[in-house]
């Protein structure tokens, strides 16, 4: 039995992106839920399974159910960091296919920018890393960047071009947080934080939330907007702490991508639009390689000189990504919402012509958890 095309996203919404003054993380989350249910034309009381993962609330699934006034049949709170939401879609598809639930809500929200101005996390440094004071999580990604540069000759300019491409997409997205011009030189001259990463290699610190609603494919067309079908999904977990990652140049995206594409029956060249969790510029290079869009070690050349920018050879992070659009601590849900917008043809100036197949990819921890979803329009079933 395959989950291919068995479940669909029938509602999606964002809330509180940028700065949401005076709102709690759960309030932003609920605003997104309200928007997604309205988008789907579904009453709150029809939701019978919920999923979330919030950084500071260990029991966030329970809080969510309480604040929605629901008594769900299933409450999912599996915590793998920013990739969690792309795992929630797989669990949702399983629940729906087994008829253990009929309407699954997946959501996230954070007020980290207005509440603290920095990443809010309950995580401490690992026992065997703490004595050396790596910045969490930045230094872990810096180490992966350094290794990629050493092993493959990836350059500072190529890394910068990831951020430049994200900004160029953001300039086409009125909802993006940072839309002023950004050049390769700006990125390279920005403040060094943990070499070789500079501040413009790092995702934003914003508020924001998002939500999606999923139903079985058989009823997915009973809603106002075109359904977006889950065609494939896969996970890969390789470590928790960067010092335990076997090869800093190969992530679990190699496994998650292969699993997801096998289930969907597609290959990288079939994908029209790609949404990757770009916590740092190196992420995009690693994931493009591991997902098979280019060979290992060639990610730098792939992204260089506008390769993934508007007009490039592959549209990546069309909303502006975590680097320029929104990054409220965990970004996974935003890859899904942007994929939905592209596949519905709702993406305005940044719309990719006749996008039928999208890849959304989430990253959790320090390159630790990788989860890939392949999404498609009705034409791809």
């Amino acid at each position, binding site marked *: 039995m395959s989950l291919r095309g068995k479940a669909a996203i029938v509602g999606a919404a964002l809330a509180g992106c940028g700065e949401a003054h005076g709102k709690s993380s759960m309030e932003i989350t609920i605003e997104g839920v309200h928007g997604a249910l309205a988008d789907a034309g579904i009453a709150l009381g029809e939701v019978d399974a919920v999923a979330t993962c919030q950084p500071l609330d260990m029991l966030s699934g329970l809080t969510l159910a309480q604040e929605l006034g629901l008594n769900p049949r299933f409450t999912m709170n599996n915590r793998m960091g920013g990739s969690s939401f792309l795992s929630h879609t797989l669990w949702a598809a399983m629940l729906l296919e087994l008829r253990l639930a009929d309407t699954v809500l997946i959501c996230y929200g954070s007020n980290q920018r207005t509440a603290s101005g920095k990443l809010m996390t309950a995580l401490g440094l690992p026992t065997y890393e703490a004595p*050396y004071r*790596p910045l969490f999580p930045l230094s872990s990604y810096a180490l992966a960047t350094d290794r990629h540069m050493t092993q493959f000759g990836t350059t500072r300019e190529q890394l910068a071009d990831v951020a430049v491409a994200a900004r160029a997409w953001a300039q086409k997205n009125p909802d993006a947080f940072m839309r002023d011009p950004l050049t390769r030189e700006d990125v390279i001259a920005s403040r060094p934080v943990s*070499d070789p990463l500079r501040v413009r290699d790092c995702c934003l610190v914003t508020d924001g939330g998002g939500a999606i609603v999923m139903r079985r494919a058989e009823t997915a067309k009973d809603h106002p907007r075109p359904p977006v079908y889950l065609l494939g999904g896969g996970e890969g977990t390789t470590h928790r702490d960067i010092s335990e990652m076997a090869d800093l140049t190969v992530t679990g995206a190699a496994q998650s991508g292969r699993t997801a594409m096998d289930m969907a029956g597609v290959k990288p060249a079939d994908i029209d639009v790609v949404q990757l969790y770009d916590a740092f510029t190196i992420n995009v290079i690693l994931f493009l390689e591991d997902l098979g869009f280019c060979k290992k070690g060639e990610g730098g050349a792939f992204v260089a000189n506008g390769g993934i920018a508007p007009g490039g050879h592959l549209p990546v992070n069309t909303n502006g990504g975590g680097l320029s659009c929104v990054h409220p601590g965990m970004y996974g849900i935003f890859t899904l919402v942007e994929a939905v917008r592209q596949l519905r043809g709702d993406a305005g100036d940044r719309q990719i012509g006749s996008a039928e197949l999208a890849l959304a990819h989430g990253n959790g921890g320090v390159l630790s958890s990788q989860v890939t979803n392949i999404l498609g329009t009705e034409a791809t079933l």
Partner: protein
Amino acid sequence: MAGIGQGPGPDAVFAAKLAEGVFEIQKCGGCGTHVFHPRVICPACGSADLGWFAPTGRGTVYARTVVRRKLERGGDYNVVLVDLEEGVRMMSRIDGIAHDQIVAGLKVTASIGEGAEGDPAVVFRPEGEAN
């Protein structure tokens, strides 16, 4: 041999050894795999037969970063991943060398120095340099 259910766990054993100036890692009696960080069972074969031994202390820098910090807050410092000769990797710091001289491939030797809170921690120096 440390065993399941006998005495303190491997984290506490490692810390106690380090406090006495001894740096040891584990070796699996079942499959011979060298293990760091300390574990209850071997991640290669699942055996609980993990014993302690002193590594040579020789290693090679696998990756490095320099954390940029204002001078008045203590200035920059390096964080590295070192591959020990025994085939295990650990996070650490290289002392006795300028940060920009640290590159992947640099040969280093372990000693016991101080961690962030002044606690004993395994640190490295370039090979051949006096400690």
